[in-house]
C-alpha cells in the first residue's frame, strides 16, 4: 500500500488485509498510530442500538462497537529529544486475558521493512536513487513483494532435511519461502517463473 500516512490509507490497508485472511480473526498489533484502531473498528464492528427511552425527541443513533472476536493491541514508544525513553504495551480491543504480552510486538514487520529498504533502491535513505514517480515506486514494490513471497528464501523458515534420500553431502537445510510456509506452493520459485506464470488459467482435464 503506497500513500500518505492518513486514515484513508489505514482503511485501505485493513481492507487489503481482510481480503488475504481467512478463518478466525487474528490478533492485530501495531505501533501507536491511532488510524489502525479506527480502521479496524470500521471493518469489524457490531452496531449497538440504544433501547427506546419512552421520552420525546429523536432516538440516539446506533453506535459502532468492536466485534467480540476483534483483538487489537499497540506497542507505544515514548521518545524524548529523539531518544527512546520507554516502551509500553496497550490493549485497545479485546479481552486482556486472551492476549499474551509476548505477542504484542512489531519486530517481525520491522524486519520486513528493513529488507524492503535494503533491496529496493527507491526506499534507500540518503541516496539519489529515490523514486521520481509514484507509479514507479508502486511498480517497484509490487514486484518486490511477489519476489519476497515466492523467490526469496527466508532463513528462519528453513527446514532440517530429515530423510536420507533427500540429503546431499554438506547440505542440512531445505530452503523455504513464505509462500511455501503458507502452503501456496511446494518449491522455491525463480524470477522467470513469476514472469511466465499465467494467473487465471483453470484446468478442465
Amino acid at each position, binding site marked *: 500500500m503506497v500513500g500518505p500516512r492518513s486514515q484513508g490509507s489505514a482503511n485501505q490497508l485493513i481492507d487489503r488485509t481482510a481480503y488475504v485472511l481467512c478463518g478466525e480473526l487474528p490478533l492485530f498489533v501495531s505501533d501507536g498510530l491511532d488510524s489502525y484502531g479506527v480502521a479496524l473498528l470500521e471493518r469489524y464492528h457490531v452496531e449497538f442500538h440504544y433501547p427506546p427511552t419512552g421520552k420525546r425527541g429523536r432516538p440516539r443513533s446506533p453506535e459502532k462497537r468492536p466485534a467480540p472476536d476483534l483483538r487489537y493491541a499497540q506497542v507505544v514508544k515514548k521518545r524524548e529529544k529523539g531518544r527512546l525513553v520507554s516502551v509500553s504495551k496497550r490493549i485497545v480491543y479485546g479481552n486482556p486475558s486472551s492476549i499474551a504480552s509476548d505477542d504484542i510486538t512489531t519486530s517481525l514487520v520491522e524486519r520486513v521493512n528493513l529488507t524492503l529498504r535494503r533491496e529496493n533502491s527507491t526506499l534507500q535513505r540518503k541516496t539519489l536513487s529515490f523514486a521520481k514517480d509514484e507509479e514507479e515506486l508502486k511498480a517497484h514494490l509490487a514486484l518486490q513483494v*511477489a519476489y519476497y513471497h515466492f523467490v526469496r528464501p527466508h532463513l528462519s523458515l528453513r527446514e532440517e532435511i530429515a530423510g536420507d534420500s533427500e540429503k546431499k553431502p554438506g547440505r542440512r537445510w531445505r530452503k523455504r519461502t513464505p509462500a511455501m510456509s503458507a502452503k501456496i506452493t511446494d518449491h522455491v520459485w525463480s524470477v522467470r517463473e513469476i514472469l511466465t506464470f499465467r*494467473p487465471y*488459467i483453470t484446468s478442465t482435464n
Partner: protein
Amino acid sequence: MRMGLRGPKPQFFNIACPNEQCPNYNKVVTSTIVSNGSYPTQSGKVHKFICHECGRVFCEREGTVFYDIRSPTEKVILALKLILKGMSLRAVAEVVEVKLDTVRFWLTKSAVHAEQVNEMLVKEIKVNRVELDELWSFVRKKNFRGWQKARKKGMAHAGSGSPLHPNTD
C-alpha cells in the same frame, strides 16, 4: 491407433486460449489446442498454437511478461534481478546497455503481472497475528517541467528574470 514417425501428438497442459470470446477462454482443454508452427526470436524458438474452438492463433508467450518484448528474455530477467537486489534503474540501464525508458517499461510490465500473481495466489491465509506498520519514503517533490513552464510564462510576462522554483519557500 497408428502413430506417426514423431510419436504421439504432444498435449499442452499449461496453454489456454487467450480469446475472450472463446468458450474455452483461459481454460486448459488439451483436445482443442494444437501446435501451429513457431517463429525465431533472439532467445530461441517461440511456439505458436491454434485453438480449434475459435480459430485464434496465439504464441506461448501470450499472458506472460515476455509477450511483445523484442529483447532476449535473459536480458530482461537480469535487469529485473538487478532491480530486485537494490540497484537503481539508471544503473541497471547502464549495465544492461538499454535505455532507461526500456528498463522502466520492463519494470512496469512485470509489476502488473506480479501483482496479478500475488492477488491470485496469496489469499485465504490463516495466521495468528497480523503486525501493522508504516514505512516512510518520498517521491520527487520538484516538478521540473512545471518549473520550466513557469519560467517561460514568467519571462513572457515580465520580459526578464526567472521566477523562483514553485516549491521553494
